[in-house]
Structures are given as structure tokens and as C-alpha cells.
């Protein structure tokens, strides 16, 4: 690169949204070939900023002032037709929720072609061929068939690739990516970001990557910019940012990286699951979805067992079976010696006091018409015991004036605290936590994790912690089970699974996990074991090992024989014959 003039030079950008400033006096420069990460909580103005860089606003937004100089020309000073020319051609954008960004009535190949034809003088047929080529270069097999699909027929990961094909079609010098991987599975996210990184580097363009995930920034970005309430509060090279953040907000979001010791757990077996199986029939056909297949594990008193996996792993269904929100098809679940699966309605009602739940969506879990007092009173059996309610609120770190509020008036983090208060109100012995922090901002996430650990230390309650977010699982769990397509593929202590995973899927999952440490960047490592292709559908499962078609170390026997869950020499359980065999060899 010979020219050192910045690709993007933003100064004093101010955007109003509905009368209030969403972005205030924002400044940023991006050099050619540089990848800059932008982070901030939701409400910080990231999305508004992303669109404003193209001179666009959503609905009630207005760009009030500033300049966005893209390769020497100020976009905001141009007239609209000239701006439109540059959009897509010189600056590309990909957004969160890719399926929502595509017209539901047009095929995706057609939409890619339309974006291409807006800047290149080509015929319809040439544009269609270009669309297919772009999809192929982005790693999709059978691109012709994919191009003729409609947006509702493709997965989130595929839809995001379609957006990239639209954004990068004419080779823009700058790609703006607004939370491109939110909602994608861990391994798909890693795959996608690798491809995006490779494409950007190959073409020599720059990128502005906006995300709340500090792991993504540490692994892919050269510089970090922090946005809070529409203002820029930090701008530093990645390594120095992670080593020594200057701003207090930055410091708090990096807070949860240090190892913290967990409370002690007793070796007793409070909850035991044996051979759990659940099948969901598909309406309109005689096929079925194998959600849970032969799952067995136990949870001790005061212990947290983490259940990790991607979509289709069945981890949520396991939680729902334990709570009997869904009836298992086979297997035994015992709690404190009493059977859960074959409990009578009366026995089940008694058991329900000891088994509680916290769900993923904090607002969805609260009746919007009830006040916090009503919600908690329902849990302590209808009596409006003010003292007890006040104590519960204090336990979960909420101010007493929250008692008269309705859910809509609370932030997501506070709503989740109310859910936790309701769960501990009946003094349960075990709480099933189903993705309790996935819908929260990083700051709220950290606070809730700390709260959950605090409660476990004080009340001695056990947790089944279900999550796809490996960071939080690592901080919460004594033991961890990794699930894939309804089966447990590895079950061991936290140290065993996170430090030295043995099963090929665990290895890939943990390899895809982006650690917030720039000294261990994924793009620099050469030893990464990746899985090819996508997660197969849980409807037509193969005969032998479910991972065999994607596994880098698959042997012929893997495809034919179903793999049993077998103890390894170090005490953990693994469902992979070749992996156990090599472990035993190492041991000897």
C-alpha cells in the first residue's frame, strides 16, 4: 500500500434520533487495510452510526452535522444521487438480523444481482452469474441452488453471507459490519468471521467491525474504539486496550476475564438423569426430530453443571424435561431420591417448589400487566408478605422502589434480577438457568453472573447452567457437559474440558470460542481444528457417530457404529472411540 491517506475520516458526526442525540461529535479515521473494532452497549448508538456513515438514517433520525470523508470526498456534502452511487460501490454495509434485511418476496441471488447491477453495467444474466460466483467464493457448496432460495428458506449464517456478497460485490474500499454474527452459532460465527477477514485482507480493503463481543474484537481487529451514549470514550490499538483500558466503562466490560474460585460443592447426587430421550414429531409428515438422545449425568448439592452446545444440541430440551414442561419419551430423572418422571400430579406440585427456572428472555418471562410485587407474591403463595418481598429484592441487588414497578419500566438486567428473585423465593434446591445472560448487554451479563455466584455461595443452591456462551459457562460451572445433536459428547471438570478438550467437537467448539486476549488471536494460530460444513438437520441423523461427516479425524468405523459415552483414564466421559484410544496411548 503506497498511499497513506485514510480510507475514512469522520469528524464531528452528530445524529439525532427522535429529538435526542444518538451520536454526538463522533470522530474516527481508518487507514487503508486496517480493521477497526467498535464496541459499546446497546443504546450506545452503534447501528445509528453504521447507517450514518452511508448518509442514511432510520425513520425519525436526522444527521445534524459533521463530515464523513470517504476516500477524499465528504459523503454528507454530496447530493443524494452522488451519495447513492458510492453506497455499495465504495462503502459496503452488513447488518444484524440478515434475514430481515432481505426482501421476503425476492430470491437471494436476484437481490445480490440487483446490488451488483446498481454499480456495474451488466446484463441480468451476468449479474446472476456473478451472484453465484460470490456465494461460491464465500464457502457455500451448491451455490446455484442457494441463489434461487428465498430469505425465509436459508439459515442465519447463509443469509449473512448473502449480505456480504451484496456488500462486497463491487469491491468497496471499506466494509462496515454492524453486529454481523449476533444470533449465529459459535462455530458458524468463527467460520464466517474467518471468511470475512480473509476476503477483506485479500482485496486490501478496510473494515469497521461493530460488536459487543470483546472476543471478536480481540481476535480480528487492529484497533478498538469504544462508544458510550453516542460519544467516543476511547480509541486505542487492540493490545494496549486489552492490557490497560483507560476509560471506566472500558474497564468494567473487561472486568470478567480473571479467574475466580468457585464455591465448594458436596459430592452428593441431588439430581440424577439416566438415559433421557425426547423426540418431537413433525407435523404433516412421519419424520421426527431427535432432540435428546441417551443423556445421563448428575448434579450435586451446591454444584453447577454447565451444558454447552450450539443450535440443535438439545440442551434447552434437557432443561425442559427436568422441569417437566415437556414430557420425556424415555429415561429416568430423580431429584433428592424422588422420581420426577413418574411423579403424580400432587407429588409433582411438591417437587416443583424445589426445582425452579430462569429463562433467556427477561421481559418475556414476566407478565407485563403485573407489578413486581404481584409477581413475587405469586411465588410465595399469594400472600403479599412485604417484608419477604423486600428481602428478596435486596438479595438480588434491586432497589426497594422497584416493588411497585411494572416490567416495562425496568432494564433487561433488572428484569432478569426479578426473574431470579422469583426463582429463589420458593427456596429451591436446584435452578435450571436456560441462557440467562444471552439477551443481556456485556455489563449486565457480568453483574448477573456475579449475582448468581453470590446466591450459590449464600444459599447453597445447585445450578444447571445451559448456555452457548463459553465465557459465562467457564465462570459458573464446576463441571461441564458438551452436547451435539442431542447427545453428550464430553463430560468433565471445568479444567478438563476448557483447558484440554478431547472430543473433536469439543476441540472445534473451544477453538471457535474467541477469547478476549489479543495475544492469542485465532487468525494467527495455525493449529486450529475446524469442522467442515454446517450442522446437519436433526431430522435425518446418520447411523454412526453424528459428527462423522464433518470430523477431521473420522475413521471408517465412526460412520458405521454409534459411539458410546465411555470413561477416559482421567475420569471424564467421552463419546469418541479414536479420541479415547489416542488418550490411552498418551497415558501409556
Amino acid at each position, binding site marked *: 500500500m503506497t498511499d497513506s491517506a485514510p480510507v475514512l475520516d469522520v469528524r464531528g458526526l452528530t445524529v439525532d434520533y427522535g429529538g435526542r442525540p444518538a451520536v454526538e461529535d463522533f470522530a474516527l479515521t481508518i487507514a487503508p487495510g486496517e480493521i477497526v473494532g467498535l464496541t459499546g452497549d446497546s443504546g450506545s448508538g452503534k447501528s445509528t452510526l453504521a447507517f450514518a456513515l452511508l448518509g442514511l438514517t432510520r425513520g425519525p433520525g436526522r444527521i445534524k452535522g459533521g463530515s464523513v470523508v470517504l476516500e477524499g470526498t465528504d459523503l454528507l456534502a454530496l447530493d443524494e444521487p452522488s451519495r447513492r452511487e458510492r453506497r455499495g460501490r465504495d462503502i459496503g454495509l452488513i447488518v444484524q438480523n440478515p434475514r430481515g434485511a432481505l426482501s421476503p418476496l425476492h430470491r437471494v441471488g436476484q437481490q445480490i444481482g440487483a446490488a451488483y447491477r446498481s454499480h456495474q453495467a451488466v446484463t441480468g444474466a451476468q449479474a446472476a452469474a456473478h451472484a453465484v460466483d460470490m456465494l461460491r467464493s464465500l464457502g457455500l457448496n451448491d451455490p446455484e441452488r442457494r441463489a434461487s432460495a428465498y430469505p425465509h428458506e436459508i439459515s442465519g449464517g447463509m443469509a449473512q453471507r448473502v449480505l456480504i456478497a451484496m456488500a462486497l460485490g463491487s469491491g468497496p474500499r471499506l466494509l462496515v459490519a454492524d453486529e454481523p454474527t449476533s444470533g449465529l452459532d459459535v462455530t458458524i460465527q468463527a467460520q464466517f468471521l474467518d471468511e470475512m477477514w480473509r476476503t477483506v485482507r485479500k482485496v486490501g480493503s478496510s473494515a469497521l467491525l461493530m460488536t459487543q463481543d470483546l472476543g471478536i474484537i480481540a481476535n480480528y481487529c487492529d484497533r478498538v474504539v469504544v462508544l458510550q451514549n453516542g460519544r467516543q470514550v476511547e480509541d486505542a490499538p487492540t493490545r494496549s486496550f486489552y492490557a490497560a483500558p483507560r476509560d471506566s466503562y472500558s474497564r468494567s466490560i473487561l472486568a470478567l476475564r480473571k479467574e475466580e474460585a468457585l464455591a465448594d460443592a458436596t459430592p452428593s447426587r441431588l439430581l440424577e438423569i439416566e438415559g433421557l430421550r425426547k423426540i418431537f414429531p413433525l407435523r404433516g409428515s412421519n419424520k421426527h426430530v431427535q432432540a435428546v438422545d441417551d443423556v445421563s449425568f448428575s448434579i450435586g448439592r451446591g454444584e453447577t453443571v454447565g451444558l454447552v452446545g450450539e443450535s440443535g444440541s438439545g440442551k434447552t430440551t434437557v432443561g425442559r424435561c427436568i422441569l417437566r*414442561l415437556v414430557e420425556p419419551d424415555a429415561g429416568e430423572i430423580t431429584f433428592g431420591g424422588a422420581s420426577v418422571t413418574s411423579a403424580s400430579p400432587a407429588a*409433582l406440585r411438591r417437587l416443583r*417448589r424445589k426445582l425452579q427456572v430462569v429463562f433467556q428472555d427477561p421481559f*418475556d418471562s414476566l*407478565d407485563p400487566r403485573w407489578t413486581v410485587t404481584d409477581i413475587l407474591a405469586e411465588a410465595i403463595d399469594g400472600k403479599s408478605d412485604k417484608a419477604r418481598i423486600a428481602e428478596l429484592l435486596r438479595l438480588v441487588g434491586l*432497589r426497594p422502589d422497584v416493588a411497585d414497578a411494572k416490567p416495562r419500566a425496568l432494564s433487561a438486567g433488572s428484569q432478569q434480577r426479578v426473574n431470579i428473585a422469583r426463582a429463589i423465593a420458593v427456596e429451591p434446591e436446584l435452578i435450571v438457568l436456560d441462557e440467562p445472560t444471552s439477551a443481556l448487554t456485556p455489563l449486565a451479563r457480568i453483574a448477573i453472573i*456475579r449475582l448468581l455466584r453470590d446466591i450459590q455461595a449464600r444459599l447453597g443452591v445447585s445450578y444447571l447452567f445451559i448456555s452457548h456462551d463459553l465465557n459465562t459457562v467457564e465462570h459458573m460451572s464446576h463441571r461441564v457437559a458438551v452436547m451435539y445433536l442431542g447427545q453428550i459428547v464430553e463430560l468433565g471438570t471445568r479444567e478438563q474440558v476448557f483447558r484440554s478438550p478431547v472430543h473433536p467437537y469439543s476441540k472445534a467448539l473451544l477453538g471457535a470460542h474467541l477469547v478476549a486476549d489479543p495475544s492469542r488471536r485465532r487468525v494467527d494460530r495455525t493449529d486450529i481444528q475446524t469442522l467442515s460444513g454446517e450442522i446437519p438437520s436433526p431430522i435425518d441423523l446418520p447411523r454412526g457417530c453424528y459428527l462423522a461427516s464433518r470430523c477431521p479425524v473420522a475413521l471408517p468405523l465412526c460412520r458405521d457404529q454409534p459411539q458410546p459415552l465411555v470413561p477416559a483414564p482421567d475420569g471424564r466421559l467421552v463419546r469418541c472411540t479414536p479420541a479415547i484410544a489416542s488418550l490411552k496411548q498418551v497415558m501409556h
Partner: protein
Amino acid sequence: MSEVLELADTGAVNVAKPAPSFLFRLGGVLVALSLVLMVMGPWITPYDPNRPTFEISEPPPALTEIPGLLWKVITGAPHDPIHWFGTDSSGLDVFSRVVAAPRTDVAIAVGANVVSLILGSLLGLLAGFARPWVAGTVMRISDLIQAFPVFITGMILVTLAGRSNMTIVLTLAFLYTPIYVRLTRAEVLSQRNRGFVDAARVLGKPEGFIALRHVLPNALAPSLIQASVTIGFAILMTAGLSFVGAGVRPPTPEWGLMIAASANELIQGEWWSSLFPGLAISLTVFGYAAFGNGVERIYDR
């Protein structure tokens, strides 16, 4: 630790309500007026709505005369009989009849909607919550009722059942119930899988309790919004049925009947006996529509 907690918001936040629009307020006024007249109409008429006066086919006072007449009424000065809206060809005072009609028109419309809303939402709850065969039966019957042509079926039922106000209420209730069943069921289906419903189950609450205390109150909003608009339609239908002779029996004061009775005189120039009842329908139904629209906007925020 406290630093983190401070930055993570743990208190309550004020949620501002939007200001009601002009249409909403206008609609509210008209709705309130119609309800007041429904209750008090027959008590405040200057003349007996069913007794002919001596003035036949008398036009309403000219605009220039009105201030003078008003002054006479207020001061209690003696004056000739005043017919603000004129009289029809039978000598009946139009103003009294227009003001007395809501006792019939609005009462029928409101009554029918109350019945169909209660019935429809309970059936909709059943169709959304109960076992498949129960739900299926409810929906098939509801669909069947909706396949009937509304106005003609209304005519048939009312005429053949005897044209009393009660039959009109029941007929309209019957025809409108499927609307509420459909709205409530759709809402129940989406509410049924929400987290707070599962949370109540995990707390050990019985299904019936959950259905009535959690699901139904959250599923009523679309029906309540729809009610205002449907009351307006019910007024239109009552007037229409009466106009063709398949509704309210004369000589009850009813807007549609009044228009039908004076339709022939219209061409001969007697415009007031058809204009004022029609204007009453026009403004009242518009009021209900505007009010319903305003409620919908507030709910959407």
C-alpha cells in the same frame, strides 16, 4: 463490584405516555355524547317523540333566526313552538326523535358487542388453550358463521324471529362473535408460549388459573380495540336493517326508520326529516371509529 453494579442500572425508569391526538379526543367526545343520550335521551326531549304536534312538515328555523330563538328560550320569554330540526310529514318533532333514538340504536349496538365480546373471548381462549379437537370444533363453527353474508343473514334472523329489539341484539351478537373469537384466539396462541406462562407452570400453578389470570388478560387488548369500531358497525347495521323494514318496528324512534319514513318526501324538498337522523348516524359512527383508532395508536406504543 459496587462499581459494576452502579453502572448496571438497577432501578425503575419512567415511561412517558404519548399525547392523545385530536381525532382521539373528538371521537371520545362523540362516543361520550352518544352514551349520555342513550341513557338520558328520552328524558330531555322538548316534545314527546311519539306524539304528533300540530305543525306538519315544518322546516327548521333559518340560521338567522336561531340566536333570537335561543335568547327567548333562555330568558323564558313566550314564543311559538320551536322545532329545532323541523317536523316530519306526520307532525313528529325531528329533534326529539333524533335525541331519543340512541336509546335504541346505541343500546342495541353496545349490548350486542358486550355479549359477543364476552362470549367471543371465552371461546377464543378455549380455542387457543384447549385440546385440539375442542379448538378445532370452535374454529370450524366460527368460520361457518363468518361465511354467511352478514347483512342478509341479519335480515333473515331478525325478520323471522319477530323484529324485537332483543332479537336484533342477539342476531348482531351472533354475527359478531366470530370476530372476537378469531382475535382472541390469535392472541392466546402467541401468549401461550411466553416465558411467564411456563414460569407459572414451574411454580406449580394449575392450567386453569394460568389461562384465566395470565393468558386471558394479556389476550384481550386487540378485542377491546376492535370493540369500538364494531359498535359503530352495529349502529350502521341496525339503521340499515330498519331502513329496509327488517329491523326495529315503527313507531320507535330510530335513525334508520326515520330516514326510511321521509325518503319519499326528500325529492319534494323536505330535506330536514332525512338529513338530521342521517347526520346523527354519520357523526356517531365516525366518533366510534376515531375513538377506536386512537385507542389502537396508544396501544401500539
